[in-house]
């Protein structure tokens, strides 16, 4: 069974009484453990599709199933719970909580899950060690470089062992080398822990890292291919 199932999804935004179609009858299925890139030019609907799959928005038409659960009609509270349990987000601007240190940012998600303080700290330190950011744990976001912040953001996104990690232009603010390193790191996680990754990008180098590429244009899937001969 696919971990993500999008069926005939249409998303229309209303701006100044004008309807703008961001997605039009999009259907796609993503299997567990996939490493998928969403590509396409700006305004093609990549971010809209990510937001819908990530339970941040609701489709105008169609249905979305995440891990077997229909999510398009859930309340904000239920969606928040679903995001907490099953989804990890990596944002373009990292979006760490500025008041918290690196380790507090990571622990925050575990706190939301109701995990005890000692267990929280243990798991947060473990992941910091895996990401080689243990020296940064007491630093606040403004005391870290972009690459360091992005690593903390990735640690925050996966510390609670989500089923799907979504990333929106997650290397856009990084230099080329750091971007490649990050993608390789995520791929390693994908392979070792079978976490499903879905990320939007229009950077050809990042697209090449994916096992599967879904191309969107004007709100429609125009092309879909396996980037490499690996199983998707």
């Amino acid at each position, binding site marked *: 069974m696919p971990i993500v199932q999008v069926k005939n999804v249409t998303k229309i935004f209303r701006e100044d009484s004008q309807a703008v179609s961001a997605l039009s009858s999009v259907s796609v299925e993503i299997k567990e453990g996939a490493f998928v890139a969403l590509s396409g030019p700006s305004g093609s609907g990549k971010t809209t599709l990510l937001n819908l799959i990530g339970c941040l928005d609701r489709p105008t038409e169609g249905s979305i199933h995440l891990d077997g659960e229909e999510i398009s009609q859930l309340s904000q509270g239920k969606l928040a719970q679903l995001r907490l349990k099953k989804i990890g*987000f990596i944002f373009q601007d990292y979006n760490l909580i500025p008041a918290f240190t690196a380790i507090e940012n990571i622990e925050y998600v575990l706190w939301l899950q109701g995990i005890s303080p000692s267990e929280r700290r243990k798991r947060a330190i473990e992941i910091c060690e895996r990401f080689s950011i243990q020296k940064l744990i007491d630093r606040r976001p403004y005391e870290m470089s972009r690459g360091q912040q992005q690593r903390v953001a990735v640690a925050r996104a996966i510390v609670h062992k989500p089923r799907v990690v979504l990333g929106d232009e997650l290397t856009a603010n990084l230099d080329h080398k750091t971007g490649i390193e990050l993608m390789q790191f995520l791929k390693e996680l994908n392979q070792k822990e079978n976490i499903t990754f879905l990320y939007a990008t229009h950077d050809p180098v990042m697209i090449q890292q994916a096992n599967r590429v879904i191309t969107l244009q004007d709100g429609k899937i125009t092309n879909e291919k396996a980037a490499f001969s690996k199983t998707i």
Partner: protein
Amino acid sequence: MFLFKLAFLNIGRNPRRSIITVLAVGVGLAALIFLWGFSDGTNEQMRENVIRLLTGHIQIHALDFQKTLSPELTVPDRSAILEKIKSLPHVQAVTERAKCEALIGTSEKSRGVLLTGIDPTREIQVTDLKNHMKEGEFLSQTDSRKVIIGDRLAEKIQLHVGDKAVVMTQAMDGTLSGYAYEVKGIFHTGSQPIDEVSAYITLRSAQELLGLDDATHEIVVRLTGRKAIPLFLSQMKAVITSDQYEILTWNQIIPEVEQWVQWSEAIIRTILLAVMVVIGVSIMNTVLMSVFERTRELGVMMAIGTTPGQVIRLILLETFILELFGIALGLVAGYLVTFYFGQVGIGFPELERAFSRSYMSTITYTRVEPFHVVQSIITLFIMTSFIGLYPAWKAGRMEPIKAIYRP
């Protein structure tokens, strides 16, 4: 705990704005505590002025005497009543008076007065009129045909110490009775109702003038304090079962004082409400600004699983923390300022004439009344928290998608 920590850290992110908000709450509360302290001090002095200068805590008369001042309405069985009162707890002193409406004057001018016959030795244990002598001396037990009058009365009928004044009234038997009295002293209490229309002679002289023999019109009781009044009244009901008496408390005799107190407290409550709204709006503005500034951040928090309820709790916590700091500051500052002016007093000598109409003193000693302090704090907390619900509710209703991509 994590949310509390985040709330705390968020407050520290804009220290200047947080300090201004805490100051707004603190100064507002301190002002309220001081205002209540001023009002409570003034009101307390008014009450005590009336009790110490005029009424004592309790007066016992023959029924309807207070209303009619009829000379024949003397206290029935007064000796027995006196003995019983003296045996009750919380009774500090008891005295008796004879009282009537009279005309006092010289050959040129005269005025209507409330003439009171007092037992000087016992009177000074109940009231402190003796401490207010401006000229001459207070009455003594052996004085006969001597009178003391208020300075305003003396001024109006141009009487001086040593002058002779004629006092005329209706005696108990209905005949007109009058004697010439020497002005032994002139007092100044600062209260117009006393200084302008009161004259005092000895009880014996009054009994002679009114033909009362040894009867009196009034038993005046001084208790250990106003708090003892309810207990005393309940005990008196057991002592005096007859309906020939009226037992009046000081505020039944001079009801204007409590009416003034209620009026002044109503004004303060109105001010309190206005101050609360200003403080509340200030807090709401701060928190709302903070929410708007952090829209994207709150959106991200919601995106990673923070529920709307948790966001509401976070914003409310930030509001509470600001309030609590402000309340602590206001409590300390308000208490210190009120305590200080409770020691040194605030003088209004130029307002003496205005104040004297309502038994007010020209120096007000502010007073910290715990009930009003607690009431101010609780009202402030509830009001500002209620107003603070709006930004919290607004934050909780944000859609993460709109918050994250807000331009």
